[in-house]
């Protein structure tokens, strides 16, 4: 446990020898990963590879069996207000009596602190974030009455309201229609342009190569990390996924094609 220091290191996010286990079963093993901002960083891997666990371990939601995670060179508790989080949608009770606006407003709570109520400034911020994800017209709707894509955008708006420098998103495109995916990607690109680092756990190989600048391939261990084109090669994919060869071949070709376009 290091003492809080000023931003001595330029790295936004560092995983040092991270190991996570559920009981005696290791889920993540000796992960050493450094991520620099700004940018869109993808964490890719098969199901059950420990991708979500990597995020949760970084955020302190699951205990670390070994290693440490540093944010801007400091432990998480020193820089909590600089980290935003969009969790998986399954963890939420959609019948909860809150509106879209109420949920986005929750993103401002951490900066308010104990027992203070959100005021006009927080409400203004929430409205702004809602507009940025294109949900201004459903602000008063109860969250259960939204489509999957709309629900995901609500959570994204909540994370925006956290006004963070580093954002974690856990499978944000899962179960979301194509149009909403485009909208979400647009928002993330805007964040990247504003100088933020966005780390996304992503499930789909095909879109991964299009969207992310750099990726990490994870399957309990860190298989490879670097620019998307370098990492998403057929050999690496085969090592990670061990799936049918022709699909991976096609992917390899798709990545190579993208490389050729200026």
């Amino acid at each position, binding site marked *: 446990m290091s003492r809080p220091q000023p931003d001595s290191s330029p790295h936004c996010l560092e995983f040092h020898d991270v190991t996570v286990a559920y009981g005696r079963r290791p889920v993540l093993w000796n992960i050493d990963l450094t991520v620099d901002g700004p940018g869109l960083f993808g964490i890719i891997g098969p199901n059950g590879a420990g991708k979500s666990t990597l995020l*949760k371990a970084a*955020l*302190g*939601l699951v205990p670390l069996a070994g290693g440490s995670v540093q944010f801007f060179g400091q432990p998480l*508790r020193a820089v*909590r*207000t600089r*980290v935003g*989080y969009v*969790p998986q949608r399954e*963890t*939420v*009770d959609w019948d*909860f*009596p*809150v*509106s879209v606006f*109420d*949920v986005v407003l*929750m993103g401002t*709570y*951490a900066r*308010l602190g*104990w*027992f203070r*109520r*959100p005021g006009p400034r927080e409400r203004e911020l929430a409205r702004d974030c809602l507009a940025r994800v294109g949900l201004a017209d459903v602000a008063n709707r*109860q969250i259960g*009455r939204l*489509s999957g894509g709309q629900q995901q955008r609500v959570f994204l708006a*909540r994370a925006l309201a*956290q006004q963070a420098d580093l954002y*974690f998103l856990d499978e944000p495109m899962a179960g979301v229609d194509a149009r909403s995916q485009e909208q979400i990607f647009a928002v993330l690109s805007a964040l990247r342009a504003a100088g933020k680092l966005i780390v996304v756990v992503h499930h789909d190989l095909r879109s991964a190569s299009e969207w992310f600048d750099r990726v990490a391939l994870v399957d309990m261990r860190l298989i490879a990390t670097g620019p998307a084109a370098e990492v998403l090669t057929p050999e690496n994919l085969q090592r990670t996924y061990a799936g049918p060869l022709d699909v991976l071949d096609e992917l390899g070709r798709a990545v190579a094609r993208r490389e050729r376009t200026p």
Partner: protein
Amino acid sequence: MTGPFPLPYNTLVVAGGMAAVGCAAGVVGCLGVLRRRSLAADAASHATLAGVALALAATGRRELPVLLAGGLLTAIGSLVVLVMLRRFTRTREDAATAIVLGVSFGLGITLLSGMTARGIPGSAGLEQFLLGQTAALTAADAMLLGCLSVAAVTLVWVGLKEVVLVAFDAPFAAASGWPVFAIDTALVALLAVMVVVGLPAAGAVLVTALLVIPPSAARQWTDRVATMLVLSGAFGLTAALVGVAISAAVPRLATGPVMVLAAAAIFAASFFLAPKRGVWARWRQQRELQQEWSRAGRDPTQAPTKAAGRSGP
């Protein structure tokens, strides 16, 4: 006939005390329902019996504050055991709750019958804590219950934002740095206090009903937490007053169970009549949609838009 009061004095005392308890139980119970801790509250309520018996055995005093303090200790103790069972053994949540409820209740009944069988002074009538003994409320008791109720509602109002955040999305709250376990514990402790405050009203067996039925009724009418809290408090208060009124009019009728029945009636009415979520409202919506679609069948350009379809439940 009733002296300087518009109603008999005892009725006023009981009505005042029960109104405060009913309202507070409705409000605090909302949070319990939203955070899905109502069953834990039920286990705590069944554990209070052992505490009441032990308080009498230990101190020999029968005043309400003493007995309720004992009840609170065992209520909290049972919740601690419940948390430990879930954390350190592989018992599932519902099984652990059932175990704690059964064991603590069994302990309470054993202590109670053992004490009455031995004729320990003051133990006679302790079983009134099983189903409540509102008729025997003195003004001092009612004041105590009223103050505790006001304190409970105030605490809910102060900490509402934190509890709603944790109840809605605990992982997000934890990632934001909120101490989720501490907030959860505080909520459950408040539920335990509310259970003890409700003991003289409805007794150990029924007090959970006062904590669960008004919020469930309120949920039918609104989609906002603040409104739900206010409505739930209002429903709890109404049920309490109706219960008191009926048992003041009809001889040989215990107040606690009538309060619970009144709350259930409110819930049934809400279930059927509430706009948007009520059974009748949904049936009407279905019919309207069917009529619209059958009209659209004759002219496709008149089909309802996707947005209109979305506004359903």
